[in-house]
């Protein structure tokens, strides 16, 4: 094989190409652009489809000899495929390519054979050391294990562990994670526990986050899953463990029928994004009753954790097999008055705040955002006082407009921003409600004609130029009661953070989605209002027909952090009887 072919082959294996055009590309030369598709299956297919390449890499056609030599990969050839990479990661890249190549080869010949194969580890390690002076024999081992984990190649990792009898801590923990992922192949719980004991003697009860989380992943699959609490405690010395790690522990708790422990962990971690697995484990483990389902749905509703694809399919299975419902994917479609389910045509309720929740939000917003730690950051004391008296004397309002934001939405060509604002005010005047516009003092320099008209038809309150107008706006809306609408195109995200409490932040998000309207004024002065999301979702049961509707799948979320898919669960005929 000459150098050019080697390069082409290397590139092929690095960036697998797909489709029927492969053959032409390879044999007509490498100048054609490659169709890049990073699926290892494709690469394997190519590798299998090219007897010439396969033969030339081992260069002997005899089957027996080929079997011995097939793992002897030319490292220089592989290195030419990583030539464009930055110098200090070149050794890593080489290991990665090598492991990838091994994975490809053993996908053809079977993983079992690789486990006992005679591999030339020392050649690889020596080359890596030459490429990167901070690596040595042991650290290359860590790099190899990382790559094995990435390519999910248990056999190769096993082979390395057979070769190196004194592995480092990081190699051990990485290997334990690979074993946890391939628990059927690696020799079951006992093997895992054996490795776990080895690790424990090495680190003397100190767990760092990386190795700790890997070990927790695997140990949760064994009978020693309760040890993970100790490890979690040890990890939290140097920072909070990741939510997926807690998810693993909760999953193990559910699998071992310790429901209280599992739910306690989930409730503690509910303000961080949780994986699907613990919930799926809960559905698998608990008794099939509607009550148990409700605990999950309440959790979802309470913390806005609607899960991903795995959870939605698990819910569907749970309802259809255990509870006798018929499960279908659905959407919310508008229906004159409100929204209905596309499948069963039952109305869907939007999620609004209860009176008490609204009051809590109202109380806290003034102190935490408008006043905040340093009053002078947003406003001044006098201004705040005068604004407060103004709102109390003239309120409540029906429409609260963000003057600057509205006037900067698509302006009428050749018109002043004041003109756009006047168009909006005219629109709301026809709606018959009390209008409040909040702006800044420099707006007085705008066209007097329009400003006078606006003044005559609405309340205009101007704050100082160096004050922030969003908190004023939100507070005025909150003060005007749960029905008042806020008109602004701003997403107001930072204010939910400023409430300094995830609970309040969630309330604020729900309130904002239901009470805020985005505005657009077109060139002819027509005003269009649109809510940010069509319907604020929450899991709900129709009391009359008994239909359940569950919002799901956060990965298809809209830009406003809400799921937009629903599951419709209709009771079957037997159930209704």
């Amino acid at each position: 094989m000459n150098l050019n072919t080697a390069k082409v082959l290397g590139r092929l294996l690095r960036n697998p190409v797909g489709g029927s055009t492969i053959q032409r590309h390879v044999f007509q030369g490498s100048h054609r652009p490659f169709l890049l598709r990073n699926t290892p299956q494709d690469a394997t297919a190519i590798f299998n489809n090219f007897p010439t390449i396969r033969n030339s890499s081992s260069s002997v056609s005899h089957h027996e000899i080929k079997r011995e030599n097939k793992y002897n990969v030319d490292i220089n050839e592989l290195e030419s495929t990583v030539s464009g990479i930055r110098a200090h990661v070149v050794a890593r890249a080489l290991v990665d390519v090598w492991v990838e190549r091994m994975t490809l080869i053993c996908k053809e010949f079977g993983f079992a054979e690789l486990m006992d194969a005679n591999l030339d580890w020392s050649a690889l390690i020596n080359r890596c050391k030459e490429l990167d002076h901070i690596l040595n024999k042991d650290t290359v081992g860590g790099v190899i294990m990382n790559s094995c984990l990435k390519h999910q190649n248990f056999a190769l990792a096993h082979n390395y562990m057979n070769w190196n009898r004194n592995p480092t801590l990081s190699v051990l923990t990485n290997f334990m994670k690979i074993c946890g992922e391939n628990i059927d192949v690696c020799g079951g719980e006992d093997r895992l526990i054996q490795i776990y004991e080895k690790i424990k003697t090495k680190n003397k009860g100190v767990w760092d986050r990386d190795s700790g989380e890997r070990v927790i992943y695997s140990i949760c699959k064994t009978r020693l899953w309760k040890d993970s609490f100790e490890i979690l405690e040890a990890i939290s010395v140097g920072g909070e463990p990741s939510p997926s790690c807690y998810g693993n522990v909760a999953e193990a708790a559910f699998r071992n029928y310790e429901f209280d422990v599992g739910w306690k962990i989930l409730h503690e971690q509910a303000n961080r994004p949780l994986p699907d697995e613990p919930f799926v484990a809960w559905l698998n483990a608990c008794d099939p009753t509607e009550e148990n389902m409700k605990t999950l749905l309440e959790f979802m509703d309470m913390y806005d954790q609607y899960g991903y694809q795995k959870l939605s399919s698990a819910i569907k299975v749970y309802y259809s097999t255990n509870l006798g419902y018929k499960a279908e994917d659905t959407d919310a479609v508008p229906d004159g008055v409100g929204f209905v389910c596309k499948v069963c045509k039952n109305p869907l309720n939007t999620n609004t705040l209860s009176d008490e929740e609204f009051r809590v939000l109202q109380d806290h917003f003034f102190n935490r955002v408008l006043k905040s730690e340093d009053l002078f950051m947003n406003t001044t004391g006098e201004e705040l006082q005068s604004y407060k008296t103004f709102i109390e004397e003239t309120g409540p309002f029906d429409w609260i407009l963000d003057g600057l934001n509205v006037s900067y939405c698509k302006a009428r060509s050749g018109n002043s921003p004041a003109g756009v604002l006047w168009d909006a005010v005219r629109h709301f005047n026809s709606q018959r409600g009390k209008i409040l516009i909040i702006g800044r003092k420099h707006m007085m320099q705008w066209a007097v004609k329009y400003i006078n008209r606006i003044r005559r038809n609405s309340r205009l309150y101007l704050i100082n130029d160096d004050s922030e107008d969003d908190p004023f706006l939100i507070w005025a809306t909150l003060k005007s009661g749960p029905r008042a609408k806020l008109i602004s195109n701003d997403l107001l995200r930072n204010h939910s953070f400023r409430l300094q409490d995830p609970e309040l932040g969630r309330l604020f998000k729900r309130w904002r989605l239901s009470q805020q309207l985005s505005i657009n004024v077109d060139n002819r002065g027509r005003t269009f209002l649109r809510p940010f999301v069509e319907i604020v979702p929450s899991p709900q049961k129709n009391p009359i027909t008994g239909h359940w509707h569950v919002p799901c799948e956060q990965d298809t979320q809209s830009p406003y952090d809400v799921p937009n898919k629903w599951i419709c669960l209709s009771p079957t005929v037997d159930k209704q009887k």
Partner: protein
Amino acid sequence: MYSLSRIPVTFHIQQNLRQRVIIKSVSSVSKSRYSTGKIHSSDYVACSQRSPFSFHRNWKPLQVLSSHYRQYSAENSIRKHENTEEHQEQKDTVNERTSSNEIDSSPDDFDADDFTQVDYDVSLTDEQIQELTNGDPELIKKVKYIQLEHAVVREEGGQVPSRIKFKNWKEIILLDSRSKRRKFLVYLFKTEMKELNARRKKEEKAELRKKEYEDNPLPSKEEDPYGMAYGLTRNALFLRLYDTTINKFNHGRVCSAMLHHPPLVLDCSYDEHMNPREAKNCAKQLELVITENRVHPEPFNLYLCNADRNSKTMNYLRRVIPTLEDDNFVINVKEESYVDIFPHERLVYLTPHTRDDLDEYNEDDIYIIGAMVDKTDPRPFSLAKAKKLDLRMKRLPLDKHLMWGLGGKSLTVNQMAKIMLDVRYTRGDWKAALNHVPMRKLCREFHPYPDQIQEGQSNNGSSRAFLQRKEKKSLVYEDFELMNRRKGFRRSEMFTPSPNRLQVPKIRSLLRDDD
């Protein structure tokens, strides 16, 4: 006992409170290295081909160079004597291990320079741990945690320093998340490599210089009896200007500025809002302000106000300028606020968050610059402060004089100081002063001759050539402006019709006449 591998290192955490992590070479070859105190030079030669911090290509291994490491190994040997018992234990276990693993086939085929090029040691002595943690068991746990984390990152081939200095321990122990600590370790690794390379280059240069002296020895008495040979290191016409002479001259100018020139206040009260890294950057910028003020022809009388001696910023600043608090150092460091020192009506706070432009520099006003680096927290602290103290607020007239491109309008402390120095020196020439605004923030797409651009083709190849042009330097500010006008400076030609633009209809009318 936790062993990283059979050969080079042993990671050991003792059971009692004498917490330390010792990484030691155990095999015979490494022992011999301890005794000679040298590092095998082929390690460096081998790695220098592709490694990121590779040393100079023509570098030849020198005996002197390993002094850096010799020091470490000397320390190690002392420690070895201290803990003979410990070491004995280690040896025993090593023997046990080797005997138990006789099948162990792995590392035989590695040659002698298989050893770690650098030996890692992040251990702390008992006194250091006591000083670091004050006996707090939580912090002692964290020290162990960080040591383990260091080992694990290293084992995965990550970039970690071979040593963590005690001052860096103080910083790293405050970091509360894994990613922060990792970044800090990478930073330490890079500084270590930089230091190593600098040392190497210096020694190389010294070698060259020595060689040059040897090649050209001073003329003997017979050749040059009166010492009149002309040249470097020989007789010359000019006196050598030493750094101290220049410093004295500059300091003299600042001294006179302290008597006769207006003050410029740097408000150091934002320390609590900055993290250690930002405080460090801030101290660096303050240092630049002081040096730039010193070399400027018309310096300010600098005041560091609200300068709490124990704050992070002041600690860092004292580290870079040890003479900061000396009586004869030409700067005023005050713990009290500027409001107590100067008359209230003369103070003007410069903050980017206000809407009032500073149209003219006023000699009677005292300008305040907030010494703050706000990389993480974007809240308008200086605005709030000025509002609270009821001071006048101004911002630089950036929009009046510059075509702004990307980036925030807040500038670093030293840029602000430079701008104020120059606007005063040039008697209100903002265009000259605003040269200190970094060019990356300005609008570079701005074309000097707008009527040459056809619609939809503003970004063709010619504008790329224009982007690559470098700034031309000139001492005369007007010339400078003229030469660099395409750098995004607003010019009157932009708004008044240029001669080029006027010509266009003329040509058309000529054509019409021909028709």
